[in-house]
């Protein structure tokens, strides 16, 4: 397979994690501009675990997920009372705080006579696990998509579970959900934690794919895109954010004639869709329609 294609597919897979992370919060009605912070925390935690402590990748990714989840819960609890714009601003402020903290974060260990580890604004290089363990690009791509498939199966389960219904109820009307007996605060913190874990795994994968991270990667641009993927692709199913990622990175990235204009086109698509389809291409109505069509086709065959 072509190196560029593998790279683009890997990017699509990894960005899907942070897109799903923002989508999970959108289900509960919260718009977060700060999921990139948990992506960053996951990237640094997993990178430190393999490059400095010699942990296996599976444990390092788990560490990334746990760190992302823990940070998200820590942010989720004090922001429970915030809604709408106030919640969005709070998450954005937290993400910027995390990014600046990583600009100041230095933790290096000498390996083979050279310092390895986060070096503030200069970034964190030599996260060489895949090279030291002879994992080639295709194998890593399969790993990304295997984990993404596990996450999607988790979403299928969630959508059918009481927790998933509670998330959507809270997203529709928090007060009404509370009156119906839904533990709003507990579910919102749970959603924040799960979303943080998802972003953390994505960050861990990203750090190991590129072998290099720096605070600039985790700025507001990544957060805005993660949110936009759900809004473009649709909020009716977890496949919605993935469709958003495919449209942006898959379609726009592959049309080289659009080079340099991609962001303008992407912004235009977001603006148009927010007007004509406020809940994205695969919104609840579209998903229901597809489901009905699918069942009818199965009955006929």
């Amino acid at each position, binding site marked *: 397979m072509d190196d*560029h294609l593998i790279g683009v597919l890997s990017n699509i897979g990894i960005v899907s994690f942070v897109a799903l992370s923002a989508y999970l919060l959108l289900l509960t009605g919260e718009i977060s501009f700060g999921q990139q912070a948990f992506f960053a925390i996951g990237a640094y935690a997993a990178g430190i675990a393999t490059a400095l402590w010699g942990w296996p990748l599976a444990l390092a*990714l788990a560490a990334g997920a746990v760190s992302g989840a823990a940070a998200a819960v820590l942010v989720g609890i004090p922001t429970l009372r915030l809604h709408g714009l106030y919640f969005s601003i709070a998450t954005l402020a937290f993400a910027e705080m995390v990014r600046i903290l990583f600009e100041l974060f230095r933790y290096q260990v000498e390996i083979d006579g050279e310092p390895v580890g986060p070096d503030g604004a200069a970034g964190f290089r030599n996260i060489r696990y895949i090279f030291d363990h*002879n994992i080639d690009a295709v194998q890593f791509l399969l790993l990304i998509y295997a984990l993404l498939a596990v996450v999607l199966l988790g979403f299928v*389960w969630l959508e059918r579970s009481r927790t998933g219904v509670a998330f959507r109820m809270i997203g529709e009307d928090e007060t009404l959900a509370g009156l119906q007996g839904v533990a709003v605060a507990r579910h919102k913190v749970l959603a924040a934690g799960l979303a943080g874990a998802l972003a953390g795994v994505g960050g861990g994968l990203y750090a190991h794919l590129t072998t290099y991270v720096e605070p600039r990667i985790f700025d507001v641009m990544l957060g805005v895109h993660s949110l936009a993927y759900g809004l473009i692709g649709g909020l009716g199913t977890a496949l919605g954010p993935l469709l958003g990622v495919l449209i942006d990175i898959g379609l726009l990235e592959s049309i080289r004639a659009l080079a340099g204009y991609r962001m303008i086109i992407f912004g235009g698509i977001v603006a148009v869709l927010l007007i004509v389809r406020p809940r994205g291409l695969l919104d609840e109505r579209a998903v229901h329609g597809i489901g009905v069509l699918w069942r009818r086709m199965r009955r006929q065959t």
Partner: protein
Amino acid sequence: MRRMAAALFAMAAIGMAGAAEAQVRARAELRCEPAGEVLLYDCTVALSDRRTNEPLAGLAVTVGADMPSMAGAHSVRPVTAAEGPVKGTYRFRLELEMHGDWALQINLSGATRDRVVELLRFEDGRVGEAPPSRR
């Protein structure tokens, strides 16, 4: 569904397994200069073994680029670098989408497999070191 999830998880875990091997760690000294056209740059990279300082010759080298401030959003299709006259040097031409700070990913394959990331600031008519991220 649970079985499918367990199978996928096992597949992912197997994919992550593997014994660590003492690999050659590459060092890259990268120089780029404008090639006469806007956003076109000629670059030379000198590759050596970090431990022994021996030049790394005879490798397949490709170079891709990404903007750290827009990770994954402006990936430049990797170009193949041709081996230069000096042992361990490779030359390539890079066409960027815009001026700014770029992280060049130098991918080595063949006898040695490694990736070195170098940051450079590409401007109109000049190339310099990319300063660390701003607050």
